[in-house]
């Protein structure tokens, strides 16, 4: 596979060693007063950025860690953190 992922423990490896864990969406919301819609949005709604996004990967065939990378979804290349398209501030 052409895709490479840089694992913080093992370094740059072939993409097929990893499993995709979805976009970065922040921690699980508190269950108190959580509306069904808010919950459903957290679980199922995605930004689907055409550009650089922060996302989770699991090093399945390697060290077994979960970590985030920035990847350009239009080229499938990893990018530096600073190039992310969406506003991190929106999340907080």
């Amino acid at each position: 596979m052409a895709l490479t992922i840089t694992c913080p423990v093992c370094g740059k490896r072939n993409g097929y060693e990893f499993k995709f864990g979805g976009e970065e969406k922040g921690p699980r919301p508190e269950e108190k007063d959580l509306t069904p819609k808010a919950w459903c949005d957290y679980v199922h709604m995605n930004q689907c950025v055409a550009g650089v996004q922060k996302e989770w990967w699991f090093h399945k065939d390697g060290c077994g860690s979960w970590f985030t990378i920035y990847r350009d979804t239009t080229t499938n290349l990893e990018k530096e953190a600073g190039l992310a398209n969406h506003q991190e501030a929106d999340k907080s």
Partner: protein
Amino acid sequence: MNRFNHLPTLKIDTAQKISFIHKGKKYYGAKGDTIATALFANGIRIFGRSLKYHRPRGLYSLDGESSNTMMEVDGIPNVRCENTALKEGMVIQEQNVKGSAENDMLGFLDKLDWLMPAGFYYNVMHKPAKLWPFAMKQIRKAAGLGKISPDFKMPGKYDEIFLNTDVCVIGGGPSGMMAALSAAKKGLRVILMESRPWLGGCFEYRSREYQNRLTLHERAHQLSKEVESLENIRVFTHASVVGTYNNNLVTGFQVGKQKDVFDERYIEIRAKSVVVATGCIERPLIFDNNERPGVMQTGCALRLAKTYGQLPGKKAVFSIGHDLGLEAALELHDLGLSIACIADIREDGQDPALLKKISEKNILFLKGWVAVKAHGRKLVKQVSLSSIDGLVKRKFTCDLLVASAGMTPVTGPITVAQGKLKYDTHTGFFLPDVMPEKMYAAGRIMGLEHPLSIETSGKLAGLKAAFDCGNCSIQEIGEAKKDLENLSGPVRGTKLVTAPVKGRKSFICFDEDATIKNIKQAIGKGFDVPELIKRFTATGLGPGQGGIPGHNLPLYVAKYQALPDISIKPTNVRPPLVPTFISTYAGAGHQMFKITPMDEMQRKDGGVFRNIGVWQRARYFSSDFSCQKEIENVRTNVGILDGSTLGKFRIYGPDAVKALQRVYVSDMSKIKEGRVKYSAMCTDDGCVIDDGVVVKQGENDFYFTTSTARAGQTVEWIRYHTRYDGWNFALVNLTDSMGVINLSGPNARKVLQKIVDMDISNEAFGFAEYKEFKIQDTVPVRAMRLGFMGELSYELHVPSSYMKSVWLMLKEAGKEFNIQNFGVEAQNVLRMEKCHIILGSESEQRTNLLDVGLGFLWDRKKADAKTVGAVALRQAENDQTRLKLVGFKMENNGRVPRDGSLIVDTKVRGYVCTARNSFSLKEAVGMALVEAPLAKTGTRLEIFEDECGDHRIYGKVVEMPFYDPEGKRMKM
């Protein structure tokens, strides 16, 4: 045929003969021959027939850019004979012929071309509709080259290697070798891929002077010696690149030599930087019958003589458009080829030195002339030449027409890696405009022809690649750049695309029999860009991947539409860039399955194994796949099952309970030591994905099991759902560490008691209890009393290396009871009778915890734990639209439905999960997921089986479980 044996450029050894069979007749070739050159040396000119019109086809290039010379070799169809070395005893057959290639009974199709205009199969034979099934059959019969049977098994040995390198150079010609040398001298690891069986590229067969009386082929030899002497350059010859991708991944394959352990091996290279030095192929000249056997490209004609020691014909006409054509004509003339005429497309611009030699040798030379037609029904007999404007024509008798319009850079490796090409008016090439990251082009691919320019551009590219690896300075690159600028630049190329002809028999694509006329038809229908024309006329869709039509198509399309500039692009080429066997991609094909410690023992006992997920497991122990004996033995006596595939884990640490609370639906804080806690895991949608048991082994220290299928994802799952929490807990996967023996049946206790020293009576070791003990003070065992099969049962977790010993002890102890193995299928029926579910059988992706009746496991009072699935379960609780798991039995003692059959009325209302003939109950029973209104006991279920037509079978919803509803047997 007499073959040259004295030329220094020869790659054959005429003293060593190799025999082969062609169409049942024995022939001889020389060592070093390809199949194609050996056939040609034996006077065979027609290799096969074309796809659509069954036109005779022969040797045209020598690098396999078209399907002309694809043949069936040793039973393998579509072997590229120009690229395949001749081997002793090969059996070669023609393809796509009815009769023979020489006399093909379908040859008349060539006269019916007017019946088959571009895209005819889209237009005709659809009306009347009744005709289509017949027409479709005929078209399918005619379509495709080569024959293969459904049970064809590819012969040969295939292998694979995965390489890492700093610099990968594609192309072992002069520029590629220079690039490899300059990068290697910077201390980098270099891989050099060359598709021919030797290095040297366009220098390798030419006798022209390089410098100081050194010929080009001598220079090639010099460079290849130096390349081979460096330890940090790995050279792969006869190795074609088939793909280039993101992050400089290069894939290809190498053809094995006689001594190699592989026939072909797949190569995958991860490089830091790539140099593309693939050079050029020739741009075919388009005229009438331009693919008639006897017409060939200049490189083909010259290499036949200089590499393979045979003259390409007796009397030749040359119709060329570049100095290489003149050079080839002169060399071949000196080797004894009689030349009737050289027609040069160019009015001027020829190398004066070459012109001088041509006139010295009294060869007729026509400037601004071109071939318009090759005559001869099967082979070239005469050639018509014409002035470019079509005003004057002359006819020559010959058996060889060397034809070439110009050059085409081999840009495949650049464009498949998403590089962009742009038309260049000076060279007439589509040149690399935007290069992919860390990829550099070098050599003739840039339009360079002067030997020193070619080499220097290679050196420059090698240094640029070294710079990417941090091993070269900007200054050095600057110097190399300056050197290149001081040498002669790209040469002017001819722009002629087609001779002045109407084009009914002028082929732009050999593989798909597409003519200039077809292109015009396509444009006439509005398909005005190459990508559309390609689809409509199939031009470039053949195995050559656009090698022949490649750049001619966009150039012709621009010309025919009189476009003001050539903004049109060549069509996309895609991997594989050269035809590649699927078996080559498959490589060594190692099967990787897990086996349990009991694998060998169970095979000896007659186990019938199946691949189940990553494991191989014993599914049956006799040829009776209903497993009646295995089942009855467990119900009435005692059976032994290998459950080693079960997922097993240790979780410990200060936050271990928190992690368990997160993923399990039950309250995991209340687990008592010595007790087995059964629980389940859900997804965020409340859908149930796993069930298993948890036992407490110490403070913040637990041992738990998962289903076989989930074992591989359990660590990932728990870590994922706790990834924001920063909790301190550790997980250890012990799945393979422990084997599991399931001892089930009313006699299970009696058997086990014989090998353990402690009291295992129902009072001392009751249902749902957990014990640890040692067998013979040596083997540590973790034992659980569970009732998955609904009988008295012990699940023994034993260290894998001791499994065999313990298994044998139990077999020995059980001898007096006639203990028997049982397999996965018997277990499946036993647990089904008890209505114990297996996730994946009684559930699918959308089935939640409540649907399968496991709602009692769910503890609603632990919102703080943020249990995965809890929110969704709360929402689903009052949802009346969900399916429910029910038990059913068949009406009137009817037969059992197949798993997966549908429950219907006017609509689909559910499906059968598992249903079997129950030997314990003497009737057919099963479990089904049905819509809530059908879930009430007594409801009649209408069951639709796949392919049953109007026939239905009927069942009735009954109470679960079917067997031992009070659960006395597993607790006895």
